[in-house]
């Protein structure tokens, strides 16, 4: 009996604690972040978080976000998804139910954004993925948006660029089987390249598993099929290993990458081996102008390194959410109504001037924007080479 009593007291204490907490937060606008702070690509999460902190300090420094005449303080909640699909789902649910956020920014990779998008859509919470390029993230999901361009656009950009710059007739692809982003982009690229250069122009189409570190067998196969270049739609940590191992096996030709290369850690991991290669991405840090340059300089000053595309896209994604909230016009305090208003607010956005380019949203929740191809120059910077618009 005594045990039961103490349990009862404990439970009532928890209730009181919960009750006393909730009204104190009512004046804030809560936005959740579902980002990979640990796991395979921690730098991506870190840059997203830093971009969030920067914007938070800026807006709260001005007294808060102006919504329909009232200033609201912003509150950002960062939840780690460990770069795993299942953790991204848990993190999304936690943000939706426990933290009761109005909208969620992230996850970044398609591997997590596709399943988390389903959760957010089912729970009627607006979500915007800064970095995910896989079409499935937003497809048939009215509550899900993104700030990046899509793989069906990015794949052909890479193919066209390689055909023009390397005079490529034959291509090889090495992709990560367990990664939605990598697999999807590899398939789009293969289809596009084959349609432009005839069937069989992609002479090798190889994959590897989660956590693999040795790629010698795949690369041996690729090199013996004698392609003009190798397309690597992979995360930066794997790129570093693949490029080094390919050079060990005697490969001297060019590599072409995709936006997942664009991380500030790529050069520390890869070093000289990655210099001189190209990848398609969302923005080029070297030689940026205007608002983009302001963002880069400020980030560099605060955190000591150049922000990669994911930081810039997170910045844009948060701004899209904030513009959506302002479009909604008011905060009623009723969570379900507010989330619905914000969703409609984002969908109704005319155009957002982002630091990664201007964005309009189509019916699917995808932005219409340009891609750039950058070259890794001898100083290890990502140098602007070409801009491709839809």
């Amino acid at each position, binding site marked *: 009996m005594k045990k039961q009593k103490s349990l009862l007291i404990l439970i009532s204490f928890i209730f009181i604690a919960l009750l006393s907490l909730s009204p104190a937060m009512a004046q804030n606008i809560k936005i959740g972040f579902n980002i990979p*702070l*640990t*796991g*395979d690509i*921690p*730098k991506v999460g*870190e840059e997203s978080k830093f971009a969030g902190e920067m914007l938070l300090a800026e807006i709260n420094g001005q007294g808060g976000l102006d919504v329909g005449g009232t200033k609201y303080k912003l509150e950002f909640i960062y939840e780690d998804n460990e770069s795993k699909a299942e953790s991204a789902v848990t993190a999304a649910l936690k943000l939706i139910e426990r933290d009761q956020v109005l909208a969620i920014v992230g996850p970044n990779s398609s591997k997590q954004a596709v399943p988390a998008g389903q959760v957010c859509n089912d729970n009627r919470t607006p979500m915007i993925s800064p970095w995910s390029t896989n079409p499935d993230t937003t497809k048939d999901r009215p509550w899900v948006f993104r700030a990046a361009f899509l793989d069906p656009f990015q794949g052909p950009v890479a193919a066209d660029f390689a055909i023009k710059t390397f005079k490529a007739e034959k291509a090889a692809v090495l992709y990560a*089987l367990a990664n939605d982003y990598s697999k999807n982009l590899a398939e789009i690229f293969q289809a596009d390249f084959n349609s432009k250069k005839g069937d069989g122009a992609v002479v090798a189409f*190889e*994959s*590897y*598993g*989660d*956590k693999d*570190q*040795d790629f*010698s*067998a*795949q690369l*041996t*196969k690729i090199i*013996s099929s004698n392609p003009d270049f190798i397309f690597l739609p992979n995360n930066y*940590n794997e790129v*570093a*290993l693949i490029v*080094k191992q390919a*050079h*060990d*096996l*005697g490969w001297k030709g060019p590599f072409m990458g995709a936006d997942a290369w664009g991380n500030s*850690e790529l050069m*520390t*991991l890869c*070093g000289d081996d990655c210099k001189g290669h190209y990848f398609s991405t969302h923005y080029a840090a070297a030689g940026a102008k205007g608002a983009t340059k302001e963002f880069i300089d400020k980030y560099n000053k605060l955190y000591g390194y150049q922000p990669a595309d994911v930081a810039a896209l997170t910045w844009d994604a948060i701004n899209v959410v904030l513009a959506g909230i302002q479009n909604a016009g008011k905060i009623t305090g009723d969570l379900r109504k507010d989330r619905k208003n914000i969703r409609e607010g984002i969908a109704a956005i005319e155009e957002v001037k982002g630091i990664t380019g201007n964005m309009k949203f189509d019916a699917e929740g995808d932005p219409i924007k340009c891609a750039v191809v950058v070259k890794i120059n001898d100083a290890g910077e990502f140098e602007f080479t070409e801009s491709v618009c839809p």
Partner: protein
Amino acid sequence: MLDSIFQNLFNALQWGSFYSLIALGYTLVYGVLRLINFAHGDIFMVGAYIAFFLAMFFLQGDGGLSGPVILAMVIPLTMILTSVCGVALERIAYRPLRRKGANRLYVVITALMCGLILENGNLAFLGASRKSFPELIDKVVYNIGSISMTNLKIGVILSSILVYFVLNAIISKTRIGMAMRGISYDKFAIPLMGIPIDTIIMVTFILGSSLAGLAGILFAMSYPVLDPFMGALIGWKAFIAAVVGGIGDIKGAFVGGFLLGIVEILAMAIFPSTFRDLIAFSILMIILVIKPTGLFGIAKSTKI
């Protein structure tokens, strides 16, 4: 076609060397203690990190040491420090359980937990960002016919073979080796013969962990991107290699490691790479179904 087969075989030998070195550690501990030390893959990870910090320490020192000199110092130091880590695990986690006469199952679960503690401890203290291992020796690419090999890959293969022969000599020629075989044969009679069983177990852990440390350095040099979970998967696979070879038998671990490397790489070379693990592990399963004790294992008798 023939060239690419030789190239693949060479790659497989290099990749199998890592499995071999780690599998030897599993098999040593199992042979003496009948304990599957699931933390072994993470001791390998600790070895790689120790090598990283030592290399950075020597590189930053103002002695102006050249790469090969640093490597010559890093190898023994890493092996010593990694074995300290292995012995510490034995003292803190396994020995108290053994003293209390706990069932072997509990010790295995403890080992699994120790592995998770090492991984997450590393994650908590060093952060999630990856470490890039510095290049200590200049990489030289040799081309024989159309086969490319690097000095590092050749070094990896040679050192794993060398390690096997040294280990074999220790087990079969020295008194300590004899005591290890004795414990494996009958762990109740051996203390009655005046052999200090705890010392022998400690030596076993020193041997196993220093091999993991060596594997850690070589791995970090070959695949210079370190992360806290790098040991988990390769540890599991090396354990499978040890079982296929016949766990408890060092020849089995050595051969099993190379076998797994060759099967994995050839499966990828012949079939689409998507099927690699499916085919590789189906083959290993068939071997075990035909010979459940593994290639060199003997059912329930002396091991090691």
